[in-house]
């Protein structure tokens, strides 16, 4: 049942919706109607929907039409009998009875592997798996039967019932658009566009790519294009960070602005520290000398002692920390695209530690002075 696969198939622009009329004439249309009306309790796999063993499901897919053989996904059933292969197969081959397609799409989406491939501009897909139902439109690349990373196989099950309702409204207009663009190139890019979690891309051995019309589809250019898009996405992020950089177009000028901004920030830190030094005549902070200890062990023991006074206030303000996190998360660090939300939480701590910097600095300096004396 191995279908011939290859790069050509990857870029095949054929859509499942093109099979509309073909499928309508098939006799298992009523089977599918039946399936729509009977939501499975535990959709452990899409083939459970069909209530068929995987092989038979694939047979069904194969039998009706010869054009189906261009669907290169079929052999993916050889892989782990997880959601994704069957989903993809079913995703492509099943007719566009709208309800079934939606469910199929959503189920296939929650196979999870296509989480990255969402850059559907019509959908706000960058905000997590619940919106990745847009993957309905993604063509699945045909892959040799290697072990795919089982990307949260439980996740689709959990979110399955919820998304059936959630994405319903989204799916229809999307699909309509899909049908309109049937013959044209899709504007959707996949391959870990920077919008989405880049670390998800690293988890997956295969990323599904849709090549644009008139663009080369060999692996090298695809990789280059992916890299370029990644870089462009990051540049866009930086542009948003730097004030006044939105109007500038062109990478070189934006980079100039970024460099200037970083330099100005560093100069500001220097200037502010000078101001602090001038304003607060205090006991010298023996950080350098304590750090320049003879033994590494001593230095290492100093570091925790240095850090501790700074972290104590953090512990104290831990209660406020949660609020702070939310604040900061939405104010300053609104880059969910990085997916590094935990970093934004970490990034709160400089604020907390610096907030108490002055109060703790004295205790810290006393502490380090004590250690110095003990030497």
């Amino acid at each position, binding site marked *: 049942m191995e279908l011939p696969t290859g790069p050509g198939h990857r870029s095949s622009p054929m859509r499942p919706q093109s099979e509309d009329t073909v499928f309508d004439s098939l006799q298992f249309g009523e089977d599918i109607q039946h399936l729509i009306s009977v939501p499975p309790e535990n959709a452990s796999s899409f083939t459970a929907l069909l209530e068929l063993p995987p092989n038979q499901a694939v047979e069904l897919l194969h039998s009706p039409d010869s054009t189906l053989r261009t669907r290169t996904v079929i052999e993916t059933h050889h892989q782990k009998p997880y959601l994704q292969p069957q989903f993809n197969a079913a995703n492509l081959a099943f007719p566009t009875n709208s309800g079934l397609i939606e469910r199929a799409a959503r189920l296939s989406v929650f196979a999870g592997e296509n989480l990255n491939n969402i850059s559907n501009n019509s959908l706000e897909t960058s905000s997590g798996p619940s919106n990745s139902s847009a993957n309905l439109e993604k063509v699945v690349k045909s892959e040799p039967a290697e072990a795919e990373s089982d990307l949260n196989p439980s996740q689709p099950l959990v979110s399955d019932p919820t998304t059936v309702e959630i994405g319903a409204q989204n799916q229809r207009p999307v699909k309509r658009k899909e049908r309109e663009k049937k013959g044209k190139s899709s504007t959707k890019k996949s391959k870990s566009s920077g919008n989405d979690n880049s670390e998800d891309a690293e988890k997956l051995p295969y990323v599904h790519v849709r090549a644009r019309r008139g663009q080369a589809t060999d692996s090298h250019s695809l990789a280059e294009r992916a890299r370029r898009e*990644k*870089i462009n996405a*990051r*540049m866009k*992020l*930086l542009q948003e*960070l*730097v004030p006044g950089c939105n109007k500038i177009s062109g990478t070189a000028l934006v*980079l*100039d602005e*970024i*460099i200037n*901004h*970083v*330099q100005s*920030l*560093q100069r500001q*830190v*220097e200037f*502010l*520290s*000078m101001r*602090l*030094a*001038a304003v607060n*005549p205090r*006991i*010298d*902070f*023996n*950080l*350098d000398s304590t*750090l*320049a*200890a003879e033994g*590494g062990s001593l*230095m290492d023991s100093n*570091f925790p002692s240095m*850090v501790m006074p*700074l972290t104590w206030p953090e512990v104290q303000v831990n209660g406020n920390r949660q609020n702070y996190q939310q604040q900061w998360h939405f104010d*300053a*660090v609104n*880059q969910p695209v*990085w997916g*590094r939300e*935990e*970093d934004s939480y*970490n*990034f709160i*701590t*400089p*604020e*907390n*530690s*610096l*907030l108490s*910097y*002055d109060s703790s*600095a004295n205790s810290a300096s006393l502490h380090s002075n004590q250690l*110095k004396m003990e030497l």
Partner: protein
Amino acid sequence: MRRASTLGPPSDEEIRTRTRRIRIVSYSSMAFAVGSSRAWSRALVLKIRNRARFRGILRNKCLASKKKRVIKRHKVSREMSKTDMLRRLVPGGAGMGICGLLEETAHYMTCLATQVHEIDLE
């Protein structure tokens, strides 16, 4: 142990040393707060540790090798591309590709902005 001069206005030298220290402490606190999850914070922590560790040692070494200082050949000053400048600015930027560099720059910039904000609050 050095004590601040209890006399009148602090001398420039003192201010300079204090400035340096405050700056080092602020950077190190920022790097510690971020932890080891980002490359720039790791590089910053290492840089501060090494600088502190080697400052004493290097001083002696410089004195010893002053006689034998070789005249440095005038380097061909090539145009510093923007990415090179960015690498210099962001700690730990030398060992990263453009992609990682941009990401680290963004995170570093936000942390720097926070730091400025907090020091400014005083």
